[in-house]
């Protein structure tokens, strides 16, 4: 035990003597949370539209007014014909073109269907379908007004109306959804890289050679290596949660100790993985590439940006070995739903098993002797 304390003391000294370490611990989470939470959003605001009104009638102007008064749309230009308007799309100056047909008013007055052409820049598919849906809604609203106007006594009778209620995130606030995931990302990156760079740094500096000829036992060495980063990463999580609360006023419905408990187990998986990478590579460069390779895959598939449920079946299977996916799911459950342990006990047990396997692998792969 005394030996472990000596290793711990040395590791902490080295970590905090590194001039970049404190900025990494305190600035990185702030910047990541602020930037990612505000920019990694799928909400569509200020869709730039170009109007081509070929009808120039009372009705067409009313429709344009509906678009003008919506906060989702911003009319950037009005053009005389479709050809001119499509130039705006091509140049990337507009997202959508709305063409109102020449006989728009006439058709409405004659109780026939009036034609509107909706052209959307669909390079970003999911954004395009959202913009399309918003535009449809505006047009529906306009349509409803006409019906009320023309048949004042028949509306709202016998029509179905669905009242949407959004649980756990009533305002559909994207930040509320993103922040718990980004917190996970934060502790993962800090933990993975700190541990992934550590042993390999000793290899590169040659210091491992001197350590290996001492009677230090494997478990003592690994404990001494893991514990500082484990504590730093846990602190990082608390720090990040504080920012989430102060800056974004993210709801925290569940139990804080429960979250920390899960994080403690999760970090064992991550740190052991980092250590494994560290023992397998000979240079920090190798370790860096291997770490990034796994982290990028784990992050992209973790359900941080896109729901796991809409991924193909193989990807959902893959996520069974993706620790980030586990913790993001659990973290969202605790923070946003207020879930208690029994709601995610299966996930937790899987994570614990994972931690044991990774730790055993890491200790096993660290070899003091070369054959």
């Amino acid at each position, binding site marked *: 035990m*005394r*030996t472990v304390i*000596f*290793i711990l*003391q*040395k590791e902490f*000294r*080295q970590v905090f*003597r*590194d001039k970049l370490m404190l900025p990494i611990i305190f600035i990185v989470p702030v910047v990541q949370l602020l930037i990612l939470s505000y920019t990694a959003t799928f909400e569509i605001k200020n869709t730039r539209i170009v109007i081509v009104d070929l009808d120039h009638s009372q009705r067409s102007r009313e429709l344009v007014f509906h678009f003008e008064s919506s906060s989702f749309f911003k009319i950037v230009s009005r053009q005389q014909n479709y050809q001119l308007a499509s130039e705006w799309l091509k140049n990337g100056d507009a997202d959508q073109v709305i063409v109102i047909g020449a006989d728009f008013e006439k058709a409405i007055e004659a109780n026939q269907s009036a034609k509107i052409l909706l052209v959307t820049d669909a390079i970003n598919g999911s954004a395009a379908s959202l913009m399309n849906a918003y535009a449809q809604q505006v047009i529906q609203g306009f349509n409803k007004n006409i019906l009320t106007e023309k048949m004042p006594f028949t509306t709202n009778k016998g029509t179905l109306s669905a009242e949407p209620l959004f649980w756990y995130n009533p305002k559909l606030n994207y930040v509320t959804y993103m922040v718990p995931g980004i917190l996970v990302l934060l502790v993962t990156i800090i933990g993975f890289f700190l541990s992934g760079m550590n042993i390999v740094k000793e290899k590169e*500096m*040659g*210091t*491992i*050679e*001197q350590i*290996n*000829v*001492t*009677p*230090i036992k494997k478990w003592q060495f690994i404990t001494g290596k893991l514990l500082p980063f484990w504590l730093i990463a846990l602190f990082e999580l608390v720090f990040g949660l504080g920012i989430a609360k102060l800056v974004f006023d993210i709801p925290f419905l569940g139990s804080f100790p429960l979250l920390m408990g899960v994080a403690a187990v999760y970090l064992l998986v991550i740190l052991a993985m980092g250590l494994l990478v560290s023992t397998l590579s000979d240079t920090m460069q190798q370790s860096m590439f291997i770490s990034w390779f796994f982290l990028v895959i784990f992050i992209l598939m973790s359900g941080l940006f896109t729901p796991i449920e809409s991924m193909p079946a193989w990807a959902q299977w893959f996520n069974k070995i993706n620790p980030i996916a586990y913790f993001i799911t659990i973290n969202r459950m605790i923070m946003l739903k207020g879930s208690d342990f029994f709601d995610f006990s299966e996930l937790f047990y899987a994570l614990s098993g994972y931690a044991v396997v990774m730790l055993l692998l890491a200790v096993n792969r660290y070899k*003091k*002797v*070369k*054959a």
Partner: protein
Amino acid sequence: MNTEMAISATAISKFYQDKKALDNLSFEIMKGSLFGFIGPDGAGKTSLFRILNSLLIPDEGKANILGFDTVKDYRQIRRIIGYMPGKFSLYQDLTVEENLKFFAGIFNSTISKNYHLIEDIYNHIEPFKNRKAGQLSGGMKQKLALSCALIHKPEVLILDEPTTGVDAVSRGEFWEMLQKLKSQNITILVSTPYMDEASLCDEVALMQEGKIMQRATPEKIIEAFEQTLWSVQSDNMFKLLSHLNDLPEIKLAYRSGDHICFIPEMLTFEEKKLLDHLEKIGHQSLHIRQIEPTIEDSFIFHMQSQN
């Protein structure tokens, strides 16, 4: 087993892919001796030391230190040896004192407990004890590394090229320290590429290409050098060397400091004839004399005659 032996190795071989790094090495080293392994880079010195200190497993053969097998009893080995790798291997971002404390700590010891062992060495660097190890000069780094290797009072000290890249003054001091440590009854194994350091050991082994070519006390090695050695100088040393090498009556010629040493083919060598010949082909201000061979000359001759 002979208790007088600190280290014994039997038929050790080590391969890296198809290259033989160590070739069937067997030797024994007396307790309390200062034993030197001399040889050029790539001779296998580091591989041998890493096998002895339990970091490397030999492909064939076995070795033991004070009766402990280097593979089976690696735990005991690591308690009784002090190892100083060729590359500086202390924590550069920790201070002198922190390094020493750390290495004392992981051996369950303290600095004060074995201070008498390192006192003479640590004295030199104590004024800088709050300086980071990475900021020390080469000579001071070696002293710190030696202190760290000694702080747990090892019985066998294994030093891999401790003086490589260290200035001449520090090298001299370093060898003085080793002599003092020897008097504390610590067996010391040291490797070096500098042949002049060989004469400072009790016994030396000349290594080349994974084999021990010769092993004896420095005096014996010089005695066994049954050649006459000559020294020659001229105004054009570069041409002189190639001219000498072209002559059939010269067995071996090599540069040594500001003169060229050569060993004639016959013991009865006529210096007059050589001088005339050299003058004829344009050499001026020639000086020639017979000199006493040193251990270096013996090694150079040995290595050349093996090729």
